[in-house]
């Protein structure tokens, strides 16, 4: 055993048991995906010609993309609308987004029948395909998030010249992130516009792309609340509930507009009977009441907005409602009355659990080894000096203002 491997193993031995469990789950997911590639989609999944899209599309792609929307929402709020006191929340959001999108790409590759040809989307263009649009955007946006994620990496290793370039790129990246996200978050809704005679009228309406985009915004905000609260509870980071209060002020507005558009679209624009399937109607009501109406009323109250526990509960409701909504659109609402019901196989579930575990694991590890939380941009001077050398020649810790340049 080499020395490096021993260092890594020793490091892992020091981890909390929860992280070890996550590592085990990721390992299981990797094994399951290996089995999928050896034995094939047909044997290892419960997909068939009636249900060509299952758990991997419904969760790993259609649900995970809005769940990773925190980065673009917060980036726009902080940098474009200039609510600068939220800056400490940006980096964790970017890490979550970058991990989320990378894992969406992994999920997509697993689900493709010919993953080795994924690059075809870049060569053979079909601009009429929402799938083309989404895959191009996801590639572009993962690149943007990667560039944004490079900042803490460069800080960690003290690469200051790239840092300046990244600093200079910051605004274009933030604006690019928001516009690309708008496109692909909404295009995930466009996917289902083609399923005219398949998706139930409770969800099928021409405003589906707009609804998907708006729900991505309030989900992005809720994810940031959930994440900051969890990080405070379990990773010993400072309590950010005062900052989160700003976000909870935005939430009821977005939820309210969403609710109005959604109800208007459902009642005025859908074609087909709305109340013919009681089980679907129940799912629809659950999604609206749990995910939209309840948190909207919660966050309209000042004492709930300020209370950290209520913040967490409201955000969790929004996220649960979003997950239910995406499953309703991509899975439950697509089921025809006389068909067998699809449920995911063990391999499919293990892969999805592995992807969720990987997200948590990588987030904790990134937070452990890179300056994600202790980032104070105002204290670092990024102006170009006379000659390109380190801003902090004394190798001082991050967040300390350098004496020499200032």
């Amino acid at each position, binding site marked *: 055993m080499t020395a490096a491997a021993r260092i890594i193993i020793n490091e892992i031995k020091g981890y909390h048991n929860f992280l070890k469990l996550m590592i085990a789950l990721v390992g299981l997911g990797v094994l399951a995906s290996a089995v999928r590639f050896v034995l094939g989609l047909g044997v290892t999944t419960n997909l068939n010609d009636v249900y060509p899209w299952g758990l991997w599309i419904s969760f790993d792609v259609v649900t995970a993309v809005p769940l990773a929307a925190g980065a673009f929402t917060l980036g726009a709020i902080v940098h474009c609308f200039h609510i600068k006191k939220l800056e400490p929340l940006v980096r964790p959001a970017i890490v979550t987004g970058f991990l989320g999108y990378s894992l969406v790409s992994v999920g997509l590759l697993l689900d493709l029948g010919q993953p080795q040809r994924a690059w075809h989307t870049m060569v053979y263009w079909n601009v*009429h395909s929402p799938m083309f649009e989404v895959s191009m955007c996801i590639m572009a946006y993962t690149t943007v998030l990667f560039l944004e994620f490079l900042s803490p990496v460069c800080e960690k290793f003290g690469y200051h010249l790239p840092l300046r370039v990244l600093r200079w790129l910051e605004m274009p990246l933030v604006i690019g992130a928001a516009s690309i996200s708008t496109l692909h978050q909404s295009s995930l809704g466009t996917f289902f516009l083609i399923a005219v005679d398949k998706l139930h009228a409770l969800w099928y309406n021409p405003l589906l792309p707009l609804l998907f985009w708006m729900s991505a915004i309030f989900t992005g905000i809720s994810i940031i609340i959930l994440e900051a609260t969890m990080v405070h509870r379990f990773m010993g980071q400072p309590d950010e509930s005062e900052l989160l209060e700003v976000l909870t002020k935005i939430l009821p507005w977005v939820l309210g507009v969403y609710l109005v558009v959604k109800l208007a679209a459902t009642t005025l624009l859908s074609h087909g009977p709305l109340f013919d399937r009681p089980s679907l109607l129940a799912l629809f009501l659950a999604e609206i009441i749990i995910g939209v109406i309840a948190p909207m009323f919660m966050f309209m109250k000042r004492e709930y907005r300020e209370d950290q526990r209520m913040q967490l509960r409201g955000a969790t409701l929004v996220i649960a409602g979003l997950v239910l909504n995406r499953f309703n659109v991509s899975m439950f609402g697509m089921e025809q009355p006389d068909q067998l019901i699809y449920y995911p196989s063990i391999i499919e579930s293990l892969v999805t659990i592995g992807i969720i575990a990987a997200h948590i694991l990588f987030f904790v590890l990134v937070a452990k080894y890179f300056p994600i939380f202790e980032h104070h941009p105002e204290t670092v001077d990024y102006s170009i000096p006379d000659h390109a050398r380190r801003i902090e020649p004394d190798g001082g810790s991050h967040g300390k203002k350098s004496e020499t340049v200032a």
Partner: protein
Amino acid sequence: MSSSTANFDKTKAFLIDTTKCTGCRGCQVACKQWNQLKAEDTKFFSGEGYQNPPLMSEYTFTRVKFKDYQKNGQNEFAFYKEMCMHCNEPACASVCPVGAFKKTAEGPVIYDAKRCIGCRFCMIACPFGVPKYEWSKAFPLVRKCTGCYSRVKEGLQPACATACPTAISYGSRAEMLKEAGKRLKNRPERYYNAIYGKDEAGGTSILYLTQQPLDELGFKPVTKRSLPSYTWQALRLVPGIFLTVGGGLSLVSWFNHRKERIKREQDQLNGAAAPENKEVDR
């Protein structure tokens, strides 16, 4: 993608007169032979009726569905040949991210297996449930009726149309529509008054005449609008939305940054005496 004003009269089309179908399934066998498709095990009563195999699959591009019904106290059979409808504006071609599906000038909708990445969006999009997947393989592809494009482009008729003794006519779409209209007009007592495929999904290259009402025979009710138009009405906004959001946010952030710079400069002017007060604003 062809616009809705495009003329499909000259594309080749099938006219399938189910009242003339004897249920011999010669088309099913001819299709298997021409496309070199494996046979499937016969399982009786595995589907909703007497047909075999129970569903179209990666090995079966076309099959005859059986429907029994009662007429004047007599038991009767109706037959319905199921196959790719070769839509004028196919949903599969419109949603495929790599353009693996193509509507040919001759009429058939063909599939380029070399391009396919296996996303199965075509299967979600097709209103007739036609594209099937090679679920048996580790790296599967889509399989579907090709309209015997290899034959049609050489001037031959598709294998099933050649094999059919009674029910299938093959020719230009305009001719087939005219012929179908003539039959409906001449023998109204024989036919249910509709041509399935004339307007379904914006018009298809397969036209059906039936005796029974369409839904009783298991024909899916399908929108009359061409399917690509449903997604295109959202997708065509993409460049505009990109520019609006990007431009709007650029403007907003430029404005906000400017506001702050002015504020900072003013603070500097006012607070020059006490410089350590304001340094956090970057």
